[in-house]
């Protein structure tokens, strides 16, 4: 029988499965205090999911605050942190919203569906802001490329991301694929979505106006992923129930596509007061968050929720994570129009409740009161923990063993062979086996996509304005130094955006870490967040939103700390975009920035020696700013034909890629006075490789001098040359490099 409020009052001492639901004893007591009685099982369900790490950010909150406290002054933000996603001003009344979110564990259990529903979830987050989703990106990390489990997980994840995104008609404009032993058994699947709207079209998630109707629309509610958000496995509340609830959700991209078009038509006709997507914690999250953010109260009749599985108990309906659902607050006079649009798109829509000013969230089931709580206490006033932090015991040793004695190539021949091996190593090899499974053309606004440094789209065909996006992370750097590792990821994404010709404006982030209950992990987290917040302040690019994913570990071994940073930039005229590949014959090749002997956490140490130690490359954010300014200005002035940022693999990798992408050769002379190995493979930050038409070379070098940006001429692009020629060192056929680079992943996964 259902546990009603009345019953709860009558039976104060009835034992409850708080622990099984992942609630600490103190948390359970806190709930009893809030309610002045024991919670009903439905209330317990709501609190357990809303107070879970995933929804409440109880371990990360006190750290994430820095993103607000240290936020740089900017007029680029229309909506800051705290909403479903931040909104950036793209000019001419265009607004852009973007966010990244993780779907790591589900992607391990069922790679295809886990990754697919990850895309579905983040797309609904963007839709919820009132925007038309216009592009997606994906940042993926797997175990060693040779590991059997990688062969199971990777193809499924890629097919899932493509299957869902392609079916939604969203171009995939970039991302990452990285491999490291630490992700075996715990792959990372982070999906980013960006949306576009007019500045006056921004929608917020709140239930305002007593008497307004609460409408649930989209897919029917089933037993999907119950407890997927909380730690609850898939227990049903009374064990007499036969059917075990699935912990895996199956996505229905067609339903979501229709839902998107339906919502956009609803927004255009201005038919909603507030709207919220149903993601983690489903109805519990949507009802409590909407009510808490609005007038403060809501009455809901759970009986009318359309069910896919009629055997669901109210507790399960509240926790279900069935996909492709949305909740809207609609004023009574617009309800008919709202329902008419849903009908046009064959979208099931049901009025399940009403906004009230009682300050209570009340729910009935079979006519009885089963929920009566102050919504804020579930949505915003959950427990907050200051978890103990402790620098890992091995951190010191790790930093001391800097691998200075690792054998390095000694002559030109060895340098060439090293380069050839490196470009075919999993982390540096061509990713087109993955990206060819993603539609990059749909919507007709894609200006740059894989394998360019950043993805770039025109915000709308009626304008020349565009946005550029890049997501980056480097867990080896972050392991060696979480503070600077996070800043290096930020710097790389920032640099990538600038290299495309766009001005970096805002940041989103997905923080993938081990267990917050492990002080060493918590130290990594605290350091990374502090580093990111400081870095964003210095670069003047505020954090607009993001997501935290804890408990990424196999047994007690956490993954390498993996903050993934997304940077968004704007460009006035997409025709001025800068590609990464060399373009014209005789282009003058310049290296911008300084190169030092920096190999801590480098791709070379990893690929050639399987070694991780020392300190990551030095961070110089002022230099990053100068570099960005030069690239952007040179792009506007049409001085550069190509620009490619230097990161993993250093100059050697950048040269090879720029040659292959341009289908040309190049004649290079390494900077004088620099050890050739260091010149080719060091990963010093703040550098880029550009090609400049001979006629502009003078003006370009002047520009660099004015900004005191080191600029070294390396050589020329040669369309007839079929080699990458490094003067006095080696000469490798482009075809050979291309095959090595292109075939590495294909051979694995074909």
């Amino acid at each position: 029988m259902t546990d009603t409020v009345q019953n709860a009052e009558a039976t104060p001492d009835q034992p409850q499965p708080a622990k099984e639901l992942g609630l600490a004893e103190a948390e359970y007591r806190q709930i009893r205090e809030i309610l002045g009685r024991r919670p009903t099982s439905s209330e317990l369900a709501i609190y357990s999911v809303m107070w879970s790490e995933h929804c409440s950010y109880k371990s990360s909150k006190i750290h994430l605050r820095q993103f607000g406290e240290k936020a740089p002054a900017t007029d680029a933000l229309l909506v800051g942190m705290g909403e479903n996603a931040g909104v950036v001003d793209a000019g001419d009344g265009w607004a852009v919203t973007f966010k990244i979110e993780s779907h790591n564990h589900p992607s391990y259990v069922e790679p295809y569906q886990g990754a697919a529903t990850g895309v579905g979830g983040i797309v609904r987050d963007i839709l919820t802001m009132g925007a038309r989703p216009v592009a997606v990106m994906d940042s993926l990390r797997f175990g060693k490329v040779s590991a059997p489990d990688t062969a199971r997980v990777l193809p499924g994840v890629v097919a899932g991301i493509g299957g869902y995104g392609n079916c939604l008609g969203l171009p995939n404009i970039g991302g990452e694929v990285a491999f490291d032993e630490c992700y075996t058994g715990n792959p990372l699947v982070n999906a980013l979505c960006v949306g576009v709207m007019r500045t006056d079209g921004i929608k917020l998630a709140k239930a305002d106006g007593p008497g307004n109707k609460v409408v649930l629309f989209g897919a029917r509610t089933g037993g999907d992923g119950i407890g997927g958000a909380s730690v609850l496995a898939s227990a049903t509340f009374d064990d007499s129930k036969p059917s075990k609830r699935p912990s895996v959700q199956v996505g229905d991209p067609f339903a979501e596509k229709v839902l998107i078009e339906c919502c956009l038509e609803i927004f255009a006709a201005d038919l909603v007061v507030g709207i919220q997507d149903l993601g983690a914690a489903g109805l519990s999250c949507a009802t409590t968050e909407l009510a808490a953010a609005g007038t403060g109260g809501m009455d809901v009749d759970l009986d009318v929720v359309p069910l896919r599985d009629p055997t669901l108990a109210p507790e399960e309906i509240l926790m279900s994570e069935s996909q492709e659902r949305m909740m809207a607050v609609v004023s009574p006079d617009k309800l008919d129009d709202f329902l008419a649009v849903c009908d046009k798109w064959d979208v099931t829509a049901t009025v399940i409740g009403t906004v009230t000013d009682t300050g209570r969230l009340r729910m009935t089931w079979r006519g009885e009161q089963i929920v009566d709580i102050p919504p804020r206490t579930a949505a915003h006033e959950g427990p907050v923990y200051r978890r103990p932090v402790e620098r890992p015991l091995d951190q010191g040793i790790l930093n001391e063993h800097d691998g200075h004695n690792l054998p390095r190539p000694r002559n030109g021949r060895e340098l060439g062979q090293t380069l050839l091996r490196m470009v075919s190593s999993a982390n540096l090899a061509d990713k087109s086996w993955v990206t060819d499974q993603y539609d990059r053309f749909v919507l007709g606004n894609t200006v740059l996509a894989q394998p360019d440094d950043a993805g770039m789209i025109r915000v709308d065909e009626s304008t020349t304005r565009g946005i550029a996006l890049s997501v980056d992370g480097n867990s080896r750097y972050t392991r060696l130094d979480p503070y600077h590792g996070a800043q290096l990821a930020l710097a790389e994404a920032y640099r990538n955006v600038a290299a495309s010709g766009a001005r970096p404006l805002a940041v989103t982030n997905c923080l993938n870490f081990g267990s917050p209950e492990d002080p060493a992990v918590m130290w990594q987290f605290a350091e990374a967040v502090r580093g990111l917040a400081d870095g964003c302040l210095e670069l003047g690019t505020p954090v607009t939103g993001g997501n935290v994913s804890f408990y990424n570990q196999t047994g007690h071994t956490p993954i390498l700390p993996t903050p993934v940073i997304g940077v968004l930039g704007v460009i006035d005229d997409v025709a001025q975009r800068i590609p990464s590949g060399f373009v014209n014959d005789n282009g003058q090749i310049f290296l911008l920035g300084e190169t030092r002997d920096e190999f801590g956490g480098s791709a070379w140490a990893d690929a050639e020696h399987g070694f991780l130690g020392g300190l990551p490359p030095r961070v110089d954010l002022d230099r990053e700013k100068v570099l960005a300014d030069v690239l952007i200005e040179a792009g506007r002035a049409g001085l550069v034909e190509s620009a490619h940022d230097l990161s993993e693999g250093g100059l050697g990798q950048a040269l090879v890629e720029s040659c292959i992408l341009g289908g040309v050769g190049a004649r290079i002379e390494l900077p004088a006075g620099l050890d050739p190995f260091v010149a080719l493979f060091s990963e010093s930050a703040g550098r880029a490789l550009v090609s400049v038409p001979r006629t502009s070379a003078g003006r370009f070098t002047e520009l660099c001098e004015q900004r005191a940006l080191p600029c070294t001429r390396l050589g020329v692009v040669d369309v007839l040359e079929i080699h990458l020629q490094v003067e006095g060192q080696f000469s490798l056929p482009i075809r050979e490099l291309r095959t090595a680079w292109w075939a590495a992943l294909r051979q694995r996964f074909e």
Partner: protein
Amino acid sequence: MTFPGSLDDRDAARAVRRAGAEAIALWHADPSLHDVDAVVLPGGFSYGDYLRAGAIARFAPVMESVIAAAKDGLPVLGICNGFQVLCESHLLPGALVGNAGRKFVCRAQELVVENTATAWTSGFDQGQHIVIPIKNMDGMFVADERTLDKLDGEGRVVVRYAERNPNGSYRDIAGITNKAGNVVGLMPHPEHAIDELTGTGTDGVGFFLSLTGVSA
């Protein structure tokens, strides 16, 4: 034309305008063709392609009108999912099934134009090589030998894959036409090759210019 799950409908409209014609939006549930001079069935995943690509869209109310009009000679171009709908509607022979590689393929694809007598290819030269994006999951054109021989014999193969066949299509077939030449199905996406900035070049415009007769 927009079916639930159509994705490249806006792009098709853009291409039509680019060729100097007016783009009229048609809706799957509205049987009227609104006196248009030609119909483009766009790419996408109508109804998710869950059963078979195009299998459910084929029963949309508007399709009866399209089938009737096509039989009376109305120019109809089916792109990708549109091609699949045309086959399911039996306006074109054969069928499109899952790619031989069992993966979605998205890339710039070189094609050779073999039939310039259709309503949609008259602007090309016989044997002309063009580059157009391909992006599909169910793009392998299959048919029995008799049908294939017939298509070849009657010169009804409109375009063929010139370099590596992306999806295992029998006889490298990328597009075909009906006997009359007014109905054409294409797996590649010409609407995504109409400007240098956002596509693979401008080779795709020719299909739409062929119809409007406007010169490039």
